[in-house]
């Protein structure tokens, strides 16, 4: 059973994927799953083929995974920890939030790889993509979830594109905790992991995907120059231990943790002019998710020596303006259609640590409003994670500090090029 009006198009193909979503704040992790399934499908035992779970890090992930597998034994169960969730019901960032997206249909599959870190991101991601491709050769869009800490996301993208092709849209997020930078969890088919990645693939030819991201930050001052790096790890900035230099510029003590730096310490990399136009900003942002004792910082992507990194300040008016511009662009590309589902990834730093509740709710509302159909928000699952995957300039890209949207539309495939 599917209660979503977005899944009830009379002219849709019978094999087309059906989406339904729910979100809730429930302390008991097992009951949380059951309640969400009831909301999404009208019954906690309704059948689906994929169950995607985003849950705040305070949840008992073993219970979540076990209960999900118990209630949806035939479904792929994938999940990730996060700082908060966004659902049709809005955003919430407590330690016991949960959001699910249940998908029914044959043209989907999922794959998983464990033990992925920054240094082996490419190989593990390739392995992951291969597994998915083996299950679902005709995949045309993937949802990628990687651990938010100690990961080289650009390597992951490259590896997936190598296997599935650069034309396949990669959307997704990196799992997170409550911004403390301790750890993050992934769920795959009843098991809980800390350094694993999963990939969900859709091969529904009737589905069209549009993704976009925006951040609204402004780079300020002189850039910090990466003087020593190793893969995604920045060892020195301006010739000094990276963390010390970074916190010094932020005005924090070196003993500070990422909890302190993440909200204010977005680092900006320059974008090529063409991509900057689409982005509405000359810079793409990166987050430092953790540090080592020697001051080495874990960067979100591979970084080369000589890369210039600017500190940034957020500009609320730009944040709203960029968001509006982004959603308007998606709506325009959709040509007036209502999406059948929306996958949403938001930076945890754009949550309660960046905006007060009123602004945040306003932001979420303005984000969802353009996608509503007859005042109903489509099935929606959002995650406050460490990073976001969305296409930029026609290429798959990893982002930080952005709001990233992946809207799925039913056929009548528009001829507009996928950004």
């Amino acid at each position: 059973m599917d209660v979503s009006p977005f899944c009830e198009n009379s002219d849709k193909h019978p094999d087309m994927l059906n989406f339904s979503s729910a979100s809730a704040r429930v302390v008991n992790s097992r009951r949380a799953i059951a309640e969400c399934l009831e909301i999404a499908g009208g019954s906690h035992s309704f059948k689906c083929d994929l169950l995607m779970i985003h849950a705040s890090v305070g949840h008992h992930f073993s219970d979540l995974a076990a209960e999900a597998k118990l209630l949806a034994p035939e479904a792929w169960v994938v999940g990730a920890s996060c700082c908060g969730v966004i659902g049709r019901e809005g955003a919430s960032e407590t330690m016991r939030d949960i959001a699910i997206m249940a998908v029914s249909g044959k043209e989907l599959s999922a794959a998983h790889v464990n033990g992925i870190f920054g240094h082996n991101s490419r190989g593990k991601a390739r392995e992951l993509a291969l597994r998915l491709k083996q299950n679902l050769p005709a995949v045309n869009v993937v949802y990628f979830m990687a651990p938010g800490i100690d990961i080289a996301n650009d390597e992951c993208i490259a590896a997936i594109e190598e296997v599935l092709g650069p034309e396949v849209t990669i959307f997704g997020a990196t799992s997170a905790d409550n911004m403390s930078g301790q750890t993050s969890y992934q769920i795959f088919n009843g098991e809980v992991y800390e350094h694993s990645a999963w990939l969900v693939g859709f091969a529904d030819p009737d589905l069209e995907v549009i993704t976009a991201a925006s951040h609204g930050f402004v780079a300020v001052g002189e850039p910090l120059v990466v003087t020593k790096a190793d893969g995604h790890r920045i060892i020195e900035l301006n010739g000094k231990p990276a963390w010390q230099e970074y916190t010094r510029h932020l005005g924090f003590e070196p003993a500070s943790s990422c909890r302190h730096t993440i909200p204010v310490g977005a680092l900006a990399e320059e974008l090529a002019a063409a991509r900057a136009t689409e982005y509405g900003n000359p810079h793409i942002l990166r987050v430092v998710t953790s540090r080592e004792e020697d001051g080495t910082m874990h960067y979100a992507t591979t970084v080369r020596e000589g890369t210039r990194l600017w500190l940034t300040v957020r500009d609320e008016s730009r944040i709203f303006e960029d968001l509006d511009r982004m959603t308007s662009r998606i709506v325009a590309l959709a040509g007036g259609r209502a999406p059948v589902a929306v996958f949403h990834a938001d930076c945890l730093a754009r949550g309660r640590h960046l905006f007060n509740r009123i602004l945040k709710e306003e932001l979420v509302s303005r984000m969802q409003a353009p996608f509503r159909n007859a005042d109903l928000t489509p099935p929606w699952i959002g995650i406050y994670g460490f990073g976001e995957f969305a296409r930029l300039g026609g290429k798959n890209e990893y982002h930080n500090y952005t709001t990233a949207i992946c809207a799925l539309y039913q056929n009548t495939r528009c001829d507009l090029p996928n950004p």
Partner: protein
Amino acid sequence: MNQDSESSPPLPPDTPEGELTRLRAENTILRGQLGQSVRLKQETLQLNHRLEQELTRFGVMQTLIQKSVVATTIEEFAPMVCESMIDLLECGAAVYWCLNEASPLEKRFYQSGLGAVPDSVLRELHRWTPRAEDSNSLEECPAAHLVSLSAAFGLADRFLFELIRDSSGCPLAVILSGNTPRQSGFQPEGDDSAVTVFKTFAKQVEALIISIQRNQTIKIQSETIRTSGECLTAALASCNVGLWDWDLSSDRVHYSDQWKVQLGLAVDDVGDSPDEWTSRLHPDEREHALKITKLCMVTPNGSFDLTLRMRTKDRRWVWINTRGYNLLKSDGTDMRMIGTHIDVTASKTMESRLIRAESKQRLAKEQAERENLAKSSFLAAVSHEIRTPLNGILGIFQMLRLREEMERDQMLKLLEMGESSGMWMLKIIGESLDIARIEAGKIELNPEIVDLHVLLDDLIALNVKRAAELRLEFRHKIVPGVPRWVRVDGGRLRQILVNLLNNAFKFTREGFVSLEVRADDFRSESHCNLHFYVVDSGIGISRSFSRVIFQSFTQAISKSQSSEHGIGVGLTITKELVGLMGGEIGFSSKLAQGSCFKVVLPIEDLPLPTSTSGPCEHPKNWKFEGVVLVVDDDEISGEIAKLILGALGLEVDLAKNGLLGLELATAKRYDMVLMDCWMPAMSGIEATVKLRGCATALSKDSPVLALTANARKSDAAACREAGMNDVITKPLLLENLREMLKRYLPGCRAS
């Protein structure tokens, strides 16, 4: 770059390099200020977030309060507390540990996020749990020990626990919260606000538990009240008692459902106005009822008890007993009247019936007394009526003894008078027996073929003579068409007409008495109705007497005023006999002008017989031949029978009881046996049975006639069943005896 400005020597400010250095320094300051500004803004955000968190916590507590409303037991409440603690403190585990009176801690707890707690921890925690009388708080547990307890619990830090007490200070439970090592890293460092929050939460939980306990008490009391209420309602319903409750201050009345039911009203038919009551009162009782209730209304502790009629929904009147009690106190408070409302229509109806029954009983008693009086009068009359002819008979016998040589004419006159007195007595006895039979419902008819014309001619002849003696005119008419041969109880028909004619003569001093007989036109082939009219020009019947004229023991004129004979049962017997024959009797009368009695009888009309084998005319001087045995224990009866039979030419033997009679009849052949029924030694019935059954008895086949004073039909049947040929009823009348002798003695001849 920064490091450059920090390491290079100062340059003169007026050189380009100096200017650059100055600008760089300013830039550094500005960047620092910008960073400071960002941090300040972030701190502001964090504060804002804290505030939001507090609001969220308030919301969590509010949710707990709302949820706890439905919790009626600790088993329901404890999990709510645990989950709220985790939500509130964003911690990893929470425990609600119940205490009981005997042991401060029992091994019953509710937890969320924890695994099983080892017993060692329970024991350790036990040390720090105060007894009920102990005021020590758990907070006094040393911090270092808390850490060890935390570890034992499997918690990392922030091990918080608090004692929950009831309103009397008695420990009820311990609540604990903490983080597992896995989750401890997610908690912000140095955030002590959780302790304050936890303590506040504990207070809230304490208040909620007290509330739940109170709710439980209230629930129990409510249940008790509800049960009592249901019992009361059921009792009132089963007793059909309605209630009303009148709030005098607002002038509103609550009428119970039963109140409405009693008046056939639906629950919604009745509002809360006093008019709902007054408007349904019977007009005859409304004013009185209002007066009484108003009086009660102004009287503290006043009460009233009224039984009045009220109109139901279907406009019937029912009797309602309403009792009211005024709760008004002397100080003017509690202006309220309450009362009951009971439908007493059934008891009222019963009461009316009782009154009517009592009235009937009284009338019946009076009637019985009257009848008793009448019977007494009757007995007096019978006594008088019997004594009078007896006086005549005895007087005649005394005269006969005194005047041994009396002249024949004088002697015949005396004998005639004696016979008349005897017949008078016989009539009285006959009427008395008839009345007895009527009262016992035993009177019976003996239909037989009767020559109606002969019967009427005899009657007319008799009354012609009687009228002449009384100097009255006797008119008689038998209208043509009256059948001659009919099947009827001739004796009873004669009795009916004789009674009517006797009355007519009795109450007519001058003028006439008439008898007319006619058959009506509506006759079938075998039946017709005979109409008998007995008319006189006598004193007439008063209106009052006409109502009781057919009742026993009534006479229009009291004995003291009348010179006529009679015991006042003639018309009663007549009416009964007419009814028995399927006929009707009626009369009309005018005082001082006369009366007319009419009797209509259905009669079976028989065809004319081809031979007149019926009763034949017998000359009074018939003589018989033969030997007759008379068996009677009464010596006089036996002797009279012997004299009469002897006078008729028969030889007679006497036997004094059945046994002697049987011996004689066995040893000698008799032409006839006259057998009394009731006798000592052997009854006539038994003697006859034995005689008929004795093959050697010489009189075995001789006719045996019962000579009995028992005149009932059943007695006659018993006699015939015993083998007797016929029945002669005492007293032995010559005419009847002749008839029987003619029938059973073949050798009769006219002398």
